[in-house]
C-alpha cells in the first residue's frame, strides 16, 4: 500500500470520528479546521501512526484544540457553550431539565475531569484507550476518572439542589 493509499484509507476510516470529537468540543466551523489540521499532521507523520489509529488521531485532535485555546484570547469557554446551544450539525435532541442539569454539572468541572468523563461517555473509549488519548498511564487515568466521577456527582447534586438561576451562581465556570 502506498502512502497515498494509506492516507486515504486512514481518512475514510476515521475522519467521521475525528470530526465528531471536534464538534463536541468546538463550533461546527472550527471543527472542520481542526479535522483538516489533524489529518495534515497525520500525513506528515504517517510512518508514526500506530495500529490503533483512531486513538492516536483523537490524541492529536485533543492537542490541536488545546493549542487553539492557548492561542485564542476570545475563545468562549466550553462551559458556556455546553448549556445554551448544541452544535449546528447535531440532530435535535429531546433535552429535558434533567439533561440541562447534566450539562450544567459538566460545565462546572475542571477541564481534565471533564475530558476524562467525555472520553468515556461521548467517545465511548475504554480506560486504556482514553489514557492513550491523554498520553498518560492507564492506572493514572483510572484514578482521574474515579475522582472526576465523584466531582461530577457532587456538581450534579449541587445543580439539582439549586433550582433555576441560582444553579449558575453556585458553580464556578471555568474559562478554558
Amino acid at each position, binding site marked *: 500500500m502506498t502512502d497515498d493509499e494509506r*492516507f*486515504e484509507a486512514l*481518512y*475514510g476510516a476515521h*475522519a*467521521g*470520528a475525528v*470530526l*465528531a470529537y471536534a*464538534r*463536541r468540543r468546538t*463550533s*461546527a*466551523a*472550527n471543527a*472542520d*479546521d481542526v*479535522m*483538516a489540521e489533524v*489529518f*495534515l499532521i497525520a*500525513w*506528515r507523520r504517517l510512518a508514526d501512526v500506530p495500529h490503533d489509529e483512531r486513538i492516536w488521531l483523537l490524541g492529536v485532535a485533543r492537542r490541536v484544540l488545546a493549542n487553539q485555546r492557548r492561542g*485564542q484570547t*476570545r*475563545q*468562549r469557554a466550553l462551559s*458556556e*457553550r455546553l448549556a445554551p*446551544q*448544541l*452544535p*449546528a*450539525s*447535531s*440532530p435535535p*435532541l429531546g*433535552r429535558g431539565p*434533567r*439533561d440541562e442539569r*447534566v*450539562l450544567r454539572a*459538566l460545565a462546572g468541572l475542571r477541564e481534565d475531569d471533564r475530558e476524562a*468523563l*467525555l472520553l*468515556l*461517555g*461521548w467517545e*465511548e473509549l475504554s480506560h486504556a484507550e482514553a489514557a492513550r488519548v491523554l498520553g498518560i498511564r492507564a492506572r493514572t487515568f483510572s484514578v482521574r*476518572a*474515579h475522582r472526576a*466521577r465523584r466531582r*461530577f*456527582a457532587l456538581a450534579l447534586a449541587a445543580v439539582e439542589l439549586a433550582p433555576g438561576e441560582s444553579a449558575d451562581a453556585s458553580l464556578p465556570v471555568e474559562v478554558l
Partner: protein
Amino acid sequence: MNADTIDRLRRVNPVPQDPPAPPIGPLLALRERELTDRGRGWAGRRSARRTAAAPSSRRRVLALVPIALACALLVFALRGGGGGQFDVAAAVYRAITPGHGVRYVVTEQASEADGKRMVLRVQRWSISDPPSERSVSLERRNYGPERRVRIESAIAPGTTWSSWWSGRPGVIEHTRATGVRMNEVAVIRAAYRAGHLRVLDKVHQDGRAVYRLQVVPPRTGPAARSRQTPNVLIVDARTFVPVEDINYGSGPHGRLVPTFVLRYRTFEELPPTPANLALVKLAAHPGTHVVQRR
C-alpha cells in the same frame, strides 16, 4: 464509572453519531500545497549545503555572509517580519475564521454609470454556532429617494436556511429556502482550503501596508461559483483582515476588468455578550405584519 453516569452523559452528547467524512479533495489540495512548499524548502537547504561545502575557501563563504544577511532581511521585510516560515495566506485564513463571538462586518460597494452613483452599505452580524446572521443594507444614491432595505436571516443547521426579509416598514416577509449560504468571507476560506489563496505582493495603500492576494473560487462544493474569474483580496498587513475585495469580469478583447470593489469598513469580533448575541436575531415588533412566503 457506573452505567447510570455514562447513560446520563450519552443522553447529552451533542453529536451522538459520527458525521459522514467530508470529501477528501480539499485536504489533498492542502497536502499538495504543503508538499510543494516542503520541496522548495528542501531545495533551499540543499543549495545552502552546497555553498557551505564548496571547496573554495572559508573566505568565499564569509564573503557570502553579507549577501545572505541582506536576502534574509529582504524576505523578513516582504513577509511582514514574521520569520522565514511565515505564511501570509494562513494568517489571513486565521484572521477571517469565525470565533465564538459575534462577527461584525461592514462593507460598502459603490457603482457609477452615466453620472448616477449608488453606494450599498451592508452591516452584518453573524455567529457560527448555530450559523445565523442578520444584516441591514442601506442604499444611498445621488438620484431618486434613499432606499433602506433590511435583510435578516437565520440559517438553520445543515443545508436549510430560512430568512426574514423586510423592505417596507412594519412588514416582515418570512421565506424558507434550501441551499448552503456562502458569503464572500466563506468563499475566501474555501479557496484557502483548496490551496487557491495566493499572495501576490505587499504594497502600500492609503498610508498603510497591505498584502494583495489572489482568490480563485473553488470549482466544486458550496462555495463554487459559475465564473472562475479570480478576485484580488487586499488585507491589512498587520491584522490580516480584509480591506478590499476586487471582483473582475471579462472586458473588451477578453481582458479582465474590475467590475466592482467591496470595501470592508469594519471587520471585528464582538464578545458573545447577551446584548451582542441579540444582534443576530430578528424580533417581530408588536404590530408587525408577518407574511409567510414559500
